[in-house]
């Protein structure tokens, strides 16, 4: 798979000079369609190029995500960036070094010497690479320092004559704006214009303070017609899904054995809840649109905008700038479309639209609610005769792109721009709700089926780890229960069913590191979770300790991972820590309630996330062989963390079906 995709990258962009430029003596500029979304990709990619060219990292700059230059590499998916972009860049660098020989990169580049195919110039024998760990830590430190002091976020970009915009809060995704007293709002201090197009409305003002006051006033004056209704559970909303898609059906059903063990894990709708809100700047001039955006896929955004605004692609440029943390398909594209609408209506000035907190929580796509049930049929020999996974989920794919004008505000316009139907990412990309639905454990028969609520009247799309979070938890719950049923130790039961030595190793190491034990004193218990992300990226095993009390807490967590060669080892550790904390936050605290068809959260009080006082002490060990190819490491922890939590809670309370978040109330309801 990886090889095939790499070939595709190199087929579309075959030349060394497609990837590497040598703009001025001593500087190398790396072109990559990948964007930095707070996961440290730029460091890893710079390290790869520095290594391949045998240069210090400080000489390498990354120019990423600008549709005016650089390869279109689709999305920055956390798990694929280093694998694919990295491999392509490493090949380009190695070829450049081979072409240069003893010569000077810059002189050769100046004479067009790198306009040659990478494929024809790869060295036969591997070139020695410099040790770059020190470079890496210096570069990492610098980037933290710059982020703290300098900002450089899209929110900080100031262009001359910038106009500040805010959108009115739409109380419900299907609400219609009946009346907005334009004159009264336009008379407020600093207001330059009130923009209204159907049910999409925004205020433009000269200053940010003024636009915030004006939009708050506008919110209170706006008259909306909105559907009403009561609380809807995720199960209610997913219930109407009739069509079953069988994703995997292999092996033979066991002839002997009929003891069935199940593990079930459900999660509600979640929201990305980035600390900074979505923001975009758009400028319309001379029939051209410039958009500054923190979207994950600048090229896809450009294509979606062209479609939605009926423009030619070459009338639009999208320039990536960093936003606050991005954890999947958030509202970055949506806010960019909204800024573009405002810019078109007011040519000349750059329009800066920043969402407010309530917009950030509800206007972008939600993460899909889902429920996953794993059933193990035990053979008479105590082994796994059959594995069944049943998944019910909202859809994971609603990104904009060519032919897909998928933007929150589209349907609100006078001339509505309707989104393409929701879908699921294809199996080749790891699937969506069925991601990690196939366990790594050996079984006689295997069946994975999903029912996806494609027509659900809520916008849902990908969030970190997609279906892997719930599927791994369900599978591991069933594994734990099956071990207990057959009176086997949960560690050896897993080990016996794993053929891949790397899988067995991460489990063994995390058990050693943590002193994992199955006994519980009734107040605390340990849980174990394992998965290889997408069954082809990094391996990760997690043990954590859960304490009962007024609310559940997780004081300690251990993770062991094998990601092959870790290009940026400390960055991988940071990704695992961050992934673990976010997954615990989802599992212990987070839920977007749906009331009357609308996501009902508006602030940090109604959508709390894990705080400093609630995070575990975390130990992470990387055990990959540096000589084996790098494996995606960005999203490997979420599934195993959910699984470790679920199995610990099972041990503590005897639950085999767990619904998160495990708030005190929700837990009490499940125990009874």
């Amino acid at each position, binding site marked *: 798979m990886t090889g095939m995709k790499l070939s595709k990258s190199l087929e579309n962009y075959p030349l060394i000079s497609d990837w590497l430029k040598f703009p001025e003596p001593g500087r190398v500029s790396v072109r990559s369609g990948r964007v930095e979304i707070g996961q440290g990709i730029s460091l890893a990619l710079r390290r790869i190029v520095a290594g391949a060219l045998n240069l210090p990292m400080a000489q390498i700059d990354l120019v990423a995500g600008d549709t005016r230059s650089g390869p279109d590499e689709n999305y920055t998916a956390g798990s694929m960036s280093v694998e694919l972009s990295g491999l392509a860049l490493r090949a380009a660098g190695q070829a450049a070094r081979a072409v240069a020989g003893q010569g000077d990169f810059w002189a050769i580049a100046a004479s067009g010497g790198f306009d040659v195919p990478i494929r024809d110039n790869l060295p036969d024998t591997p070139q020695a690479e410099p040790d770059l760990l020190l470079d890496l830590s210096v570069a990492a430190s610098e980037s933290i320092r710059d982020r703290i*002091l300098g900002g450089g976020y899209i929110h900080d970009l100031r262009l001359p004559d910038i106009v500040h915009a805010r959108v009115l809060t739409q109380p419900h995704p299907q609400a219609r704006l009946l009346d907005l007293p334009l004159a009264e709002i336009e008379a407020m201090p600093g207001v330059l214009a009130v923009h209204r197009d159907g049910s999409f409305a925004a205020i433009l003002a000269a200053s940010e303070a003024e636009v*915030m006051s004006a939009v708050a006033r506008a919110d209170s004056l706006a008259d909306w017609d909105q559907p009403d209704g009561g609380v809807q559970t995720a199960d209610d909303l997913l219930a109407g899904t009739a069509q079953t898609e069988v994703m995997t059906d292999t092996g033979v059903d066991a002839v002997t054995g009929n003891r069935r063990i199940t593990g079930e894990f459900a999660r509600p709708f979640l929201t990305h809840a980035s600390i900074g809100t979505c923001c975009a700047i758009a400028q319309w001039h001379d029939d051209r649109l410039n958009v500054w955006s923190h979207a994950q896929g600048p090229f896809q955004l450009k294509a979606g905008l062209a479609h939605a605004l009926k423009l030619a692609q070459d009338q639009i440029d999208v320039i990536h700038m960093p936003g606050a943390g991005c954890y999947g398909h958030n509202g970055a594209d949506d806010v960019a479309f909204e800024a573009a609408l405002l810019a078109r209506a007011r040519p000349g000035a750059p329009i800066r639209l920043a969402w407010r907190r309530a917009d950030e929580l509800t206007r972008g796509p939600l993460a899909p609610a889902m429920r996953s049930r794993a059933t193990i049929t035990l053979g008479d020999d105590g082994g796994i005769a059959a594995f069944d996974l049943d998944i019910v989920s909202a859809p994971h794919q609603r990104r904009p792109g060519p032919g897909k004008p998928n933007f929150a505000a589209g349907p609100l316009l006078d001339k509505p721009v309707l989104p393409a139907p929701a879908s699921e990412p294809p199996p080749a990309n790891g699937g969506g709700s069925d991601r990690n639905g196939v366990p790594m454990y050996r079984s006689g028969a295997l069946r994975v089926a999903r029912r996806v609520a494609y027509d659900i009247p809520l916008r849902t799309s990908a969030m970190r780890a997609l279906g892997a979070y719930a599927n791994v938890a369900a599978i591991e719950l069933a594994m734990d229960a099956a071990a207990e049923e057959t009176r086997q130790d949960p560690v050896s039961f897993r080990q016996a069913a794993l053929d891949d030595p790397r899988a067995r190793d991460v489990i063994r190491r995390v058990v050693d590191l943590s002193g994992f034990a199955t006994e519980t004193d009734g107040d605390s218990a340990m849980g174990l979770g394992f998965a290889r992300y997408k069954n082809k990226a990094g391996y990760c095993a997690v043990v954590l300790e859960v304490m009962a009390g007024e609310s559940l807490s997780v004081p300690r967590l251990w993770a062991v991972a094998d990601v092959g060669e870790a290009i940026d080892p400390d960055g991988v550790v940071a990704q695992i820590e961050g992934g673990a904390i976010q997954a615990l936050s989802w599992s212990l605290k987070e839920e977007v309630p749906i009331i009357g068809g609308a996501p009902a959260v508006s602030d940090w009080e109604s959508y709390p996330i894990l705080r400093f006082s609630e995070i575990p*002490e975390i130990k992470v060990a990387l055990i990959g062989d540096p000589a084996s190819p790098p494996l995606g490491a960005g999203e490997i922890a979420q599934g195993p963390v959910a699984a470790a939590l679920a199995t610990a809670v099972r041990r503590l309370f005897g639950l085999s079906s767990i619904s998160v978040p495990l708030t005190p109330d929700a837990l009490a309801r499940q125990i009874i």
Partner: protein
Amino acid sequence: MSDGRVSFTLNGEPVEIEAPEAEPLLWTLRNRLGLTGARFGCGEGSCGACAVLVDGQIETSCSLKLWAVEGRRVETVEGLGDHPLIAAFAAERAGQCGYCLSGLVMRAKGLLDNTPDPDRAEIIAALDEGLCRCGAHPRILRAVARAAEDLRG
């Protein structure tokens, strides 16, 4: 909002600014004074992305009116370029997207100014009102402890 003249000390320097007195300090800092270290996260005082020190106390600048700092001492992250906290955050690689960091650094500064030798619980208590979504917490806690040690020499 009526305009007025507001004077205060900003990172040790006197400033006088003419601006609507009811303007939240966050916008004055970011858009009039060009200091983008304090960041907007919620505008409601509940995330801490905009935190600054006023007379040594932590305040969320999104919910503090400009007139309220008249005659007072305001510190923002821009004043901490040479402070061991910045070096410690950098050395611990404490942060992913980094958006939350300036506010958390200010909380830590407020703590260390009064408590040179904080234990883990004191560090946690000082930072707890500040949110981080990327899960950089363990590194941030380590960075603050490291800075405290560096400051003690």
